[in-house]
Structures are given as C-alpha cells and as structure tokens.
C-alpha cells in the first residue's frame, strides 16, 4: 500500500519545509519514503515541486499518478492536475482552484497572516497534510524547532497546529514495520561513503547538482577533522586534490559536467603520475550550461575517454543510495590499489532523491592504503618501478627517513625523471595499461533482475536502476518474460552477464536518460552486440518506472 503526493509552488514559498518534514516524519514512523525533486535554476519564483511516494514496503522509483497535490500556488494546480487520480485530492488556499470536488480549500494564507507571517502558509499546509493522513503532528514540531531560528519557532508551530485543525483525516495509513531506516539522498550518501573511507581532503567549486555533496563535506569537516575547500575554480580543485593525494591523504573532488570539462587535463595528470583520486561527476543536461538543475546521463562516453593520451581509469555509475555509499567507499580502495583516478558518475536525479535506506554497515568498510614498506635503499624512491603486474610500490613524502619521492607529468623513468627513451616509454605505457587488465578482474557485474531466461532484455546504468527494477516487475506481472541488466561498474565494461543474457534474449533495448544511447554505443564498441531498440529521454526529467513499462508495452522505442 502506498501514496503519492506532490508539493508544488514557487521557489521561496517553502516547499522544502513541507516535504522535508513530512518525509522525515514518515521515515521516522517506519514507512518507506521515496522523494524526488524538480526545480528551476532560480532562487525565487518560477515553479518547483517535490514528489513524495511512500508506503509500507521499499520503493524504487517516482510515480506519475498522484493521490494528493499540495498546491502552494495556482500554477501547481494547473500543471499537475492531469496527473491526479480520480479519487485523489488537491490541497490549496481558498483563493485558488475551481469547483472540482477533489479540491480541499483551506485559508492557508489567512491563517498564516493571522499568525503574523504570511510566509508560514507552507507550514499550515504541512499541518493539514499530516492530518489528512492521520499522522500525529508532534514529531513535526520537533523538526520545525530544529529548522527555524528561535524567533520563528512559535509561529510555525502554531501554523502547523492550525493547519492540522483545518481539515479532517481521509487516508488510512498502513501498518509500519517499525524498522529504523535512514532517509538520505544520493549526494549525502556519496559524501558519507567518502567520509567512511577516510577521505581527508575534498576540494571543489560549487556547481549544481554537485554543490550539495560539497556542502555535505563542508558541514562535517570540522567534526571529522578533514579539510574541505571551495577552490577558485575546478582546475584548482582537482589539482590540489592530486597534490594532497600525492602527499599521502585520501582526496576527492566533485563537480558536474562543465566543471568536469575543466578538470580533464588534470585527470590525465592523475593518470600519468599514478596518483589515486576519486572524482564525482554529478551529471546534468548539457551541452554547456544546459539545464542546470535537471538530470541527464550524457557524460558516459565523455568521462571514459576524457584527456589526451591513454591511461587506466575506472568509472562507476551510482545507481541508488546504497551504491552511493558503498561504491564511493570502494572507489577509494580501488584508487589506492591501482593508483588511478576513479570516476563516480551520478546525476541530479539520484543526488536529489531522498530515499528510505537500510542503515549502512560501517563494519563492511575497510580502508586499505597499499603503502609500500620502507625500501632497502635511501635516496630517490623508485616510484614507477617496472613490475610484472604494472603496479609500482608507492610511498608518500617523508613517510620514511631519507627516502624521497618524485611524481612527474611527463613520460618518465622508474624514478619519475623525465625520459624520452623509446624503451622506457614502451615499458611505462605497458606498465600503466596492464592495470586495466587487473581492473577487469575487480569488476562487479551489473545487477540482473527478472526472468531467468528473458525474451526481452532491458539494459541500463546508474540512476535508472530503480525505475527499471519496478518496470520489470510490472512487465512480468503482465506475463512478459523480461529482465533488466543495470550497470554500476561501467568502465572497464563488465561483460560476463552481458554476454550471457544477450545470448538468451530475443530483443535487447537500452534504456537511458540521454539522446544518443551512450551505453548502447559502449556495448557495441566493447562486444559488437547491438541493441534492437532504445528507450531514451533527454528533457531533463527522469523517466519513472511507469514510463518504461508503458514504452515497452506500446513498443514505443526507436
């Protein structure tokens, strides 16, 4: 059993307060919550909304049909009404809305005004919403207290209560498991994973939708003792992280596409100097500035081939809030073990999705630094020693008395000294590229769910995981022998399951949040396999499970 509600209004009207507190209340009660955001690139005005889906079992995607719309303005009412279920309701101020009997009008503004602050209309709406679901408002008062400064608290709590009184209960809530779960979004989960992995240096430059990751790190910097810096630009952000990593601490940077573009040269620097580095690219639609606050999966081929020359790297697409934590933590170990840059590909959708998530098991996180022992010699360390597996011993400056270490962006000899020698060049290229082979052994195969022998195989990556998961469930309920393969580790491309299921399936369809079908290209490039159709969306709004389900059912793919 589940409900879908939408809270909408202009930027600055306080949608965030309503949704945040409502979600926390539900999660605290033991419900499963899945909330996703849609907002414009402006600070005030325009139209923003949050969709909250919740129920008594895990939820994997947002959903198009609504039980309740909380319309803080008229636009919300007009824009989303067509998605309201026949038995749904709209909650709004008395000043708007028509005769539709599904509209519940309450004097949001008047109540707020009468309490001395018209800006509290949203809190009134929150109170009313809680009541509609028959939820005790006590926890919400605590959250209001946390959220607001002293002087605003009393008013807001009154507003909450008056809203609560203004309507009567209409929904029956299911029983809850009573489980204690966390409610976290993709960027927070990613940041928490980084902190768990012992990331001690985070430098970045603000860029939506990666800013909240940086903000998360900044918020906990003092508490965890790490260093977080807003750099002057993305170039400084990544180069300084490389410096920190060279000097021995775990370092990370995060950005979105435009910032990643500026980091490309230094990505190669990490590659050739063999400096571990974790880079989060939280994708948004391009090209260039594109749609700053929206979502897309269109940087895949870019990050795989970014930077001049050839060097090993790993790309991990984050699929959900579990991945965002565990894979981020894993990325640091991989970066250290192979001395490579590891790119985490996230996107706005995932970064902003707040989902009820099983508490992370910190015992599963192991920090492995792979430092070399003290060498038997003094002086210059053989940082780029030729070894059979391509991995050279690594130490940090001053780690051992009388041993020092040089890193270099040119082709270099085993000591890191510039070299133009043919044999050294060949050996160094091979040494570095050998790590690519080792990486292939490390890969986590994509998740597969669905029929054991699928006739229809959907292939996706990253944040379409949840929507695909639910879509497959629906398709199978309709008797379709479908399955989906969703990539997390994506470069190098794991191929075992891919070859297995492609062999079985009659029809292969790639499902991606971009125009050109980048994963499909990558799969053809790596295996020769061609998809037979594509379900693509590139308007900056994430496809939901129903969208995929419907596209499959209606054969709506090209």
């Amino acid at each position: 059993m589940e409900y879908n509600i939408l809270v909408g209004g202009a930027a600055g009207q306080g949608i965030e307060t309503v949704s945040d507190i409502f979600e926390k209340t539900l999660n605290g009660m033991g419900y499963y919550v899945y909330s996703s955001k849609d907002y414009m690139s402006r600070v005030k005005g325009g139209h923003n909304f949050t969709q909250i889906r919740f129920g008594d079992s895990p939820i994997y995607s947002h959903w198009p049909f609504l039980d309740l719309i909380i319309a803080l303005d008229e636009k919300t009412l007009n824009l989303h009404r067509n998605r309201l279920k026949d038995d749904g309701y709209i909650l709004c101020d008395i000043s708007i809305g028509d005769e539709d009997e599904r509209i519940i009008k309450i004097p949001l503004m008047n109540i707020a005004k009468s309490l001395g602050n018209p800006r509290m209309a949203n809190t009134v709406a929150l109170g009313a919403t809680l009541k509609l679901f028959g939820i005790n408002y006590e926890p919400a008062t605590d959250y209001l207290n946390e959220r607001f400064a002293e002087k605003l608290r009393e008013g807001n709590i009154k507003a909450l209560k008056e809203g609560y009184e203004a309507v009567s209960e209409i929904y029956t809530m299911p029983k809850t498991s009573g489980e204690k779960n966390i409610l976290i979004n993709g960027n927070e989960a990613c940041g928490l994973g980084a902190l768990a992995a012992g990331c001690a240096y985070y430098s970045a430059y603000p860029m939506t939708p990666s800013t909240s990751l940086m903000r998360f790190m900044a918020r906990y910097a003092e508490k965890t003792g790490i260093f977080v810096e807003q750099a002057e630009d993305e170039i400084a952000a990544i180069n300084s992280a490389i410096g920190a990593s060279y000097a021995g601490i775990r370092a990370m940077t995060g950005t979105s596409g435009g910032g990643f573009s500026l980091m490309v040269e230094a990505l190669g620097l990490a590659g050739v100097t063999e400096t571990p580095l974790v880079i989060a690219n939280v994708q948004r639609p391009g090209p260039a500035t594109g749609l700053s606050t929206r979502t897309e999966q269109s940087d895949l081929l870019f990050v795989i081939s970014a930077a001049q020359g050839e060097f090993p790297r790993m790309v991990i697409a984050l699929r959900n809030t579990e991945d965002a934590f565990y894979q981020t933590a894993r990325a640091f170990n991989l970066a250290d073990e192979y001395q490579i840059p590891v790119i985490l590909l996230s996107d706005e959708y995932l970064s902003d999705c707040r989902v009820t998530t099983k508490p992370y098991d910190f015992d599963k996180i192991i920090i492995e630094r792979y430092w070399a022992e003290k060498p038997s010699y003094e002086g210059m360390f053989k940082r780029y020693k030729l070894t059979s597996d391509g991995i050279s011993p690594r130490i940090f400056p001053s780690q051992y008395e009388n041993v020092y270490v040089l890193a270099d962006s040119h082709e270099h000899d085993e000591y890191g000294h510039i070299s133009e020698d043919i044999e050294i060049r060949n050996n160094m290229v091979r040494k570095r590229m050998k790590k690519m082979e080792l990486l292939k052994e490390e890969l986590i195969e994509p998740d597969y769910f669905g029929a054991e022998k699928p006739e229809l195989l959907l292939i996706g990556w990253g944040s379409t995981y949840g929507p695909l998961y639910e879509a497959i469930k629906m398709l199978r309920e309709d008797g379709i022998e479908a399955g989906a393969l969703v990539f997390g580790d994506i470069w190098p491309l794991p191929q075992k399951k891919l070859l297995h299921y492609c062999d079985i399936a009659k029809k292969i369809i790639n499902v991606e949040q971009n125009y050109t079908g980048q994963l499909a290209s990558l799969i053809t490039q790596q295996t020769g396999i061609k998809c037979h159709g594509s379900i693509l969306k590139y308007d900056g709004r994430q496809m939901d499970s129903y969208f995929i389900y419907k596209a499959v059912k209606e054969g709506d793919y090209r």
Partner: protein
Amino acid sequence: MRNNPFHFDCEISWCPGCGNFGIIEALKETLDELGLKPHNTAAISGIGQAAKLPHYIKSNGFNGLHGRALPVAMGVKIANKDLVVFVNSGDGDSYGEGGNHLIHNIRRNIDVTHFVHNNQIYGLTKGQGSPTTELNQVTTMQFDGVKSAPFNPIAFAISQDCSFVARTFSGDKEHMKAMMKAAIQNKGYSLLDILQPCVTFNKVNTFKWYKDRIYYLDDSYDPYNKEEAFKKALEWGDAIPIGIIYRSNKPSFIDRFNHLKDAEPLVKRKWSPMNAKAIMEEFY
C-alpha cells in the same frame, strides 16, 4: 656542493649560461643551510624550463601541469604541514596560465614559497612573449612586438596584501639565498620573483641589463609600509629595486582552521570508517 644533501648529480637540460643554474645552486645551499633534509621538502612545479627544477634536486617533488603548480603545492601542504613546500616555475607558468591560482593563494596565505624564475619570456616553447615581456618587444611569436602591457607581479601581490613579496636576481647568489631564506621562513604565502636571464631567447633582458639596473633595498626601507611598498613596486626600467618589498603579518591559511591549526598533519592521522558513523545518526 658535493656535501649538500640536496645536490643531485645529473644531466641538466638547460642551455649553458642560463640564469636557472644560479637559482638552483642558491636554492640547494639555502635548503641545506636551513638544516632541512630532502625527505622533508617538496619541490613542486608546472611546465617550462624553470619547472624542470624538481628533476635536478634531491627532494620530494611533483612536476605537474603547466600553470598548476600552486594548487598542487596547496594540496601537499594541507596534507602534510610539516613539509617545507616550495614552487619553482616560470613567469609564463605563474603569471600566465596560472594567474588565477596566484590571486587566490595570496588570498589564502597558504604557507608555500613561490619562486618565480622570471626570464620575461617563454623559454621552453622557444621564445614567445610572456606576461612580463616588455611592451613592443619583438619575439619569436610577436613579430610586430608584444601588445599587452607587462604584468607587475610585485604591485599585484602588494595590492592583495600578500604576506611576503620580494625580488632578487639570479646573478647574485648571496642575495638570492637571503631572500630564499626569508621567504621560506615566512609563515604564509611568499612570492619571490627572481630576475633570471634567458640567454637564448631574451636578448633584451640580459645579465647585463639586469645588473645595470638593479639596486638593493637597504635597512632604511620598511617593508611593512604598504603604500611605500606600492611605490617601490612601480619602479622598473632604469632602476629596479631588489629585496623584500612588502611584508605583512597575518595567520597562515592552515592556522585559520581550528581543527587543523594545532593538530597533527592530516597524513599522520589514523582514519577509521567509524569516524563517519556518528554522522549517519543524523539521517534517521
């Protein structure tokens, strides 16, 4: 020199007579005289002739990208504040491609010493004008002369209240050493602009050209006076002041963070996943 722990016997690819030789000698002596050891120093650079320096000295080192030495140096210093971190890079590297990092590291006052080998030319790429090349000077790229006014690094650094701003000349080892020492000892970002003749590509600003024009700031000069320093910074041409032109006392970047200031260097700390577990509590 043979006893200098920083001395490294290697082939050096600079042109014979290049001003860089003087700088590296002075640097090695300075480091040694300060009682430092190669494993406690980090020589950071970008790309250019000057930027090859980390290859010619015994020390930890990071030879990164053109224009990006300062961010790397900052990362290194933050990771391990016990290291003495210095940058050797050219005028193109430091004031051209890397200009933005210069601005913002002065603002930070990160405890890094920046030695700019200012030969007023792009050496490694064979003689193009650099940000400090004189207006109208003909170069291998500017056939009709340079059209942009030269960048004044000293005035610039003073305008942003840089904690240590000095100039020296690669033809005077003792002066260089004195300046290098003071620069390294300054707890904060130190800019040392070193007049360095490029014997191959800069036929205007030769050893003699500098020699004939430099004059030494003496004890009567107060580097803490910003307005006076600014005046000094504008002197160029017939008389070029060398010495410490400006200083100001302020906390270094790391010392502005309560949790870093008196703590162990980050690299020496033990990091445990449990460090983060408490934070998860906030998400229930």
